[in-house]
């Protein structure tokens, strides 16, 4: 932690965070995505979230699979190690990286194809292990990089650019995660930066697997009339059923809220998540209540957004495995190797 990136350039107008870094210091290479692609907005949100959380960029590990979405880790946190894995295999790579070094912050970026088709099994099992990471699905209902085939999150009946209607039902990552016991589940929209950033910050603070499904339209292949993942459709069907604010540990909690109208969840690191505007009777700590809400909204064609479910009590993979505090990658060889005397002793067991 001693080698914090030096601020690159002095942009006099830019706010510095506690590390003295401006938002520019959290950026990456120039995007090569299509102009207007939702994924670029998500990138901006991520940059802002990390900046606001005062995270040292090089203590972050950013990973992805393959797809337009999976290219985006190059576009943020240039000082963080990145791993552009194979299609659908990011969760396992992240699991291994975390196993080797539990002290870093892990963020994975994936697409709906990457996560819900080829990578569904790995996603499900990362959830099951409650791997401590933020997992973002940049969900556009299509395979962007391979030019517009329907993905598994394409809604039944949604039209492709060529006019074909999708004949299969959608896999909804939110309900899926709920059924698999995920401990943090949220949905947002790339076009709603305010909400997105606050969700991302809470998700990063969450100890355990935080799934954030972001509807992120593909302007090139899925933003036309008839698509249910277009900017227009999404804007018209969004409903923020949970409005939450994330209050980092170090800030004083000054947010004003009526008693009864808000619920507060204390995160693992002591920061607080305030549910300030919650649909009536919504209980983000009850799987069944959340599932009910999802089903009802689905039936009425609405897309519920917000932090939909949180459970801060779950143990993460390392707690479950009782991994030592020192990252395994840093434990000295002397500690790891039992040495010749112990071997000699052990040999007697094999006689």
């Amino acid at each position, binding site marked *: 932690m001693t080698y914090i990136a030096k601020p690159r350039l002095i942009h006099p107008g830019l706010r510095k965070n506690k590390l003295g870094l401006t938002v520019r210091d959290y950026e990456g290479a120039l995007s090569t995505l299509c102009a207007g692609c939702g994924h670029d907005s998500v990138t901006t949100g991520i940059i802002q979230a990390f900046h606001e959380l005062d995270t040292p960029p090089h203590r972050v*590990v950013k990973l992805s699979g393959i797809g337009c979405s999976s290219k985006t880790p190059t576009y943020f946190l240039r000082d963080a*190690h990145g791993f552009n894995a194979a299609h659908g295999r990011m969760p396992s790579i992240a699991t291994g990286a975390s196993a080797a070094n539990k002290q870093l912050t892990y963020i994975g970026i994936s697409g709906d194809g990457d996560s819900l088709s080829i990578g569904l099994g790995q996603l499900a099992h990362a959830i099951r292990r409650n791997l401590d990471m933020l997992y973002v699905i940049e969900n556009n209902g299509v395979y962007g990089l391979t030019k517009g085939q329907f993905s598994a999150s394409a809604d039944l009946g949604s039209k492709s650019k060529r006019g074909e209607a999708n004949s299969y039902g959608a896999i909804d990552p939110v309900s899926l995660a709920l059924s698999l016991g995920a401990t943090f589940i949220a949905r947002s929209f790339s076009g709603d930066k305010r909400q997105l950033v606050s969700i991302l910050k809470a998700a990063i603070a969450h100890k355990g697997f935080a799934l954030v499904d972001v509807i992120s339209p593909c302007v090139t292949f899925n933003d036309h009339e008839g698509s249910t993942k277009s900017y227009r459709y999404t804007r018209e069907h969004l409903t923020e059923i949970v409005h939450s604010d994330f209050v980092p540990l170090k800030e004083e909690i000054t947010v004003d809220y009526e008693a009864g109208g808000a619920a507060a969840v204390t995160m693992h690191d002591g920061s607080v998540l305030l549910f300030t505007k919650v649909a009536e009777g919504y209980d983000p700590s009850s799987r069944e209540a959340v599932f009910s809400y999802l089903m009802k909204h689905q039936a009425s064609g609405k897309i519920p957004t917000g932090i939909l479910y949180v459970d801060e009590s779950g143990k993460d993979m390392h707690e479950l495995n009782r991994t030592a505090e020192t990252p*395994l990658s840093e434990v000295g060889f002397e500690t790891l190797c*039992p040495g010749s005397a112990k071997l000699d002793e052990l040999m007697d067991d094999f006689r």
Partner: protein
Amino acid sequence: MDNVKVDRINEFAFKIANTNGTGSASANGLIMQAIFRMGVPVSGKNLFPSNIQGLPTWYEIRVNKDGHTARTPAFDLIVAMNAETYARDIQELQPGGYLLYDSTWPLNPALKREDVHFLGVPLAQMSRDSFDKPREQILMKNIAYAGVLAALLDIDTKVIDQLLEEKYGAKQAMMKSNHLAFKLGYEYAQKNFKCPLPFHLKAMDATRDAILIDGNTALALGCVYAGATVAAWYPITPSTSLMDAFKGFCHRFRENKETGENNYCILQAEDELAAIGMVIGAGWSGARSFTCTSGPGISLMSELIGLAYYAEIPAVLVDVQRTGPSTGMPTRTQQGDILTCAYASHGDTKHILLFPANPEECFYFAAHAFDLAERFQTPVFIVSDLDIGMNDWLCPRLKWDDSYKPDRGRVLSADQLEKMEKFLRYSDEDQDGVTSRTFPGVHPKGAYFTRGSGHNKFGRYTELPHEYQEVVDRLSRKHAAAAKYAPAPIVHTEEGATVGVVSLGGCDGGVREAIEELKKQGIICDYLRVRAFPFADSVETFLRAHTKNFVIEQNRDGQLRTLLMAETGIEKERLKSLLAYGGFPLSSHHVVDGIRQQLGSQS
């Protein structure tokens, strides 16, 4: 020819035919260990079915004063505990051999063989008479045949007592039952048969510095000693016991007994694709990490193996081979994954392979594999097999050199990075093929974007031919460079040798025994055992020295031979295949017959 007419001391083989799930393992282990403790070289081959309960299983024990521990198909004695396989078992006896059967039920006279001695012992009856619980009756029947064997083969009963004491010292009831059952069998044999048989044991002093260990256990121990901390796997026979052993050793050596904290992380993955992903993630992040699997797992891992190769991430994969293709015979041995491992993944890829021949090498090769993986930043395969991995082998005690320091290869520290102008991940300044890497979280300057897509020497995305080629050409040089660091071949030359013999892995015992035998028959062979790919120069030198080299391996297609043809400069005419691939460990008979036949047909 009646093989057993003359007395044969410490030189015979027998097997126990049983049904799996009946708990015969402890009886068989007891016998095997007792022989070992008598100082006599012994080996055991467990031929078990891919099933949990009720199918035939055999345990073969070979005793050989000269230390030949390869499988032999010539049995002097068979303990026939499984009525279903009586017929087959009886057929497999040497003329003059002995069949020990459970005479609680009469033997079908149709099965009788004139040239075989039948020894009936009412094992089930005895056990039923002496024990109450059905489960105990089954188990003790097995200990009873161990007693019979002890008498017939002249096993030192004091050794047996000692072993039972060690095993059941704390559980007196168990101890008593075992003693009783053993005695029942022992005394019955003493009373009813002429003991010992013409072939039998006599204490020696040949195992004092030895142990009995299986390759999976030894390899797991090697991983612990090599400092591996992250292990990810998906259960598959015959590799499962490797991870079980690793877990056991970690439990013993890597847990802080006070805090309960673990200096290891074992991940049972959801499948092999995830297992290798985890290993790659951990290796990338700076931990020594490995997986163990078998053929189907290697197939499933192939995409990510290519990623690790191209993105240059260390990973150790243990392939405990079983009989393929596809699911094949999961509980039978083979060396059928050589080519698959060497060229695993699409595109131009080549990997480093190590071929241990026995549990001892499994142990030492483990540390070697991690050193190679980190030095060359690439996947390294330890290509073992079921025979090595799951059978107990007689090996010298394993030793550890405390001066060993892991070779972590080129890794830049925070300080080094701090002083650098710019870190370029794939830039090969000194042209030795290997470039510097960094671990995440160490220093902002060390950051780069690891990718399996086209990249140039700076680690940046490219689609330019020359930039792409520069990197893959270096990978090719890097692979070749590993030959000098990998375990060198073992070469044994003989004055007057006319042919070369080349083999690998678990074939070694059978081949060495065969070479001795051939020598007696006047055929003198030089022998080279390949221990790694890429091949050392000495491999080609050896092959060139012989116009005829027999390449002996356990697969149908002569995969080592193919690899030798493809990856050395040797003319293929010099390479003759001698293959065994039915699923049983190689025996010297097969080699002797094969070489004689091929020489005969051409001379």
